[in-house]
């Protein structure tokens, strides 16, 4: 693995390149991580996914969006449009490092929504794999907010001042109104339709699968039984070997 920083419009992003082990295929995979607590919970899983894909000969790049993880900036300066640009910049970076022509995007949760939304802007993208994509930004934020409120409510030691301070900091990350609005307005139905023939969706949420809405968007939709427990403030990591194997197969 080779870590490095690269720039997109002056924003410094951390990239982690996994070169292919042995015979190199003419394809690369850009992993688009989820955000907030889900980012921390899936870090090890996505690292393992990258290692296994590289072992099969793929060039793989993981990265952190601007204002998140080890990339420069604060979440207060972040926006969905910046994150979409970050994905395209990372895809170009992967091409530049490896010399490959085709890139697959593999996104998780909000990262999946961003990946499919960015796919039209990134010319190199030939395949998009989504793991439990966030379908509706407003519902996603509501889920984050509900778990945050539950966290506050379950905390016996908070003073009224603490509760007030906690409520002033949306979802615990002090998200700005413009960022909340841009996440809230994310809808991916149209983007999914535009990329239906190269879209692969893996759902671990039975209710989402049973609703049938994903099967209408792509013939390549599959249910995989694994309890990811999103969204949550739980620190339990998401790391299933069988799940990783399935993702490798999809990519």
């Amino acid at each position, binding site marked *: 693995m080779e870590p490095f920083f690269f720039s997109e419009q002056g924003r410094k992003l951390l990239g982690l390149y996994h070169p292919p082990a042995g015979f190199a295929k003419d394809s690369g995979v850009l992993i688009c991580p989820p955000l907030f607590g889900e980012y921390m919970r899936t*870090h090890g899983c996505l690292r393992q996914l990258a290692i296994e894909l590289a072992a099969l000969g793929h060039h793989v790049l993981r990265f952190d969006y601007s204002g998140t993880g*080890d990339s420069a900036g604060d979440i207060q300066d972040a926006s969905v449009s910046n994150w979409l640009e970050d994905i395209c910049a990372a895809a170009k970076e992967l091409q530049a490092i490896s010399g490959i022509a085709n890139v697959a995007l593999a996104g998780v949760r909000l990262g999946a929504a961003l990946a499919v939304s960015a796919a039209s802007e990134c010319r190199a993208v030939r395949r998009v794999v989504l793991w439990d994509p966030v379908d509706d930004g407003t519902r996603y934020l509501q889920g984050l907010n509900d778990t945050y409120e539950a966290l506050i409510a379950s905390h016996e030691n908070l003073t009224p001042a603490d509760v007030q301070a906690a409520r002033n900091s949306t979802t*615990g990350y002090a998200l700005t109104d413009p960022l909340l609005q841009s996440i809230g307005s994310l809808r991916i139905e149209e983007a999914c339709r535009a990329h239906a023939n190269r879209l692969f969706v893996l759902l671990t949420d039975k209710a989402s699968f049973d609703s049938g809405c994903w099967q209408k968007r792509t013939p390549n939709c599959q249910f995989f039984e694994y309890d990811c427990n999103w969204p949550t403030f739980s*620190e339990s990591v998401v790391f299933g070997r069988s799940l990783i194997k399935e993702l490798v197969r999809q990519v």
Partner: protein
Amino acid sequence: MSGVRAELPERSVLIGTNSVFSIVTEPAAARRGPGVILLNSGLLHRVGPSRLYVHLGRRLGALGFVTARIDVSGKGDTPRRQEVTAEQSLLLDYDDVCSSLGSRFGLQRFILIGLCSGADDAYAVASVRENVAGLVLLDGYAARTARYYFRHYGSRVFHLQPWISRSRRILQRLSRTVRRADDDEPDLSMAEVRNFPRTPEARRRFEIISQHCERCLCVYTSASQTYYNYEGQLLDGFPTFRPRGDVREIYIPAAKHTYPLAHHRRIAIESICEWAMDFS
């Protein structure tokens, strides 16, 4: 959140034979004091819970400290070391990082910062490495004292809320037991989960640390309530822990273990930075 708007130079480096992943923040202005090394919290990678380590590392960098947030072997992006014990692995990582920061920045003394298992690791390293100049233990070790027990049980006797909570917990447990007998999780306190050393061994280690470590800051949250409940308890439990400088204790009972609330993260970061500023 971090309060640092200007970007500081940060480099990603792989250190030593096991490629210990580190993000090194380099101070923009004049350098100050020892180098700072942030050790992983639990299974989390170097970013820390809710980006706590990133903000802390950058704040300390802005204050003039060379700061490395690292993934120790087997965590984050650093592979596990083969054929060594966990303690040996940790020390090899630490020595490699010190050597790298030493050769690049001329640093010879270090401040170790860790949350949860990171605090345990920092404590373990400090008890065997003389180049540890400062320790920041977030929900680190402490011994239960008579005053701890008095406060612990006193608060339960005279306040209604714990009785209500306890009754509720018992009812919930009973109902779970009725629903499915094997569904119940063990009720382990943090001290039991983390395998803290026994008090005589901990005392011995603190005495060793006193000989070379100049200063120590310990921050405790609600997660420590099963073994810590008042400021000053660490030194009450270990009166022979006397570094040359100060031992500062901060208790934030409203904060949760991983600081999910932004204003508690801010308090923790500001407390650490204020403490660090006293290093010459």
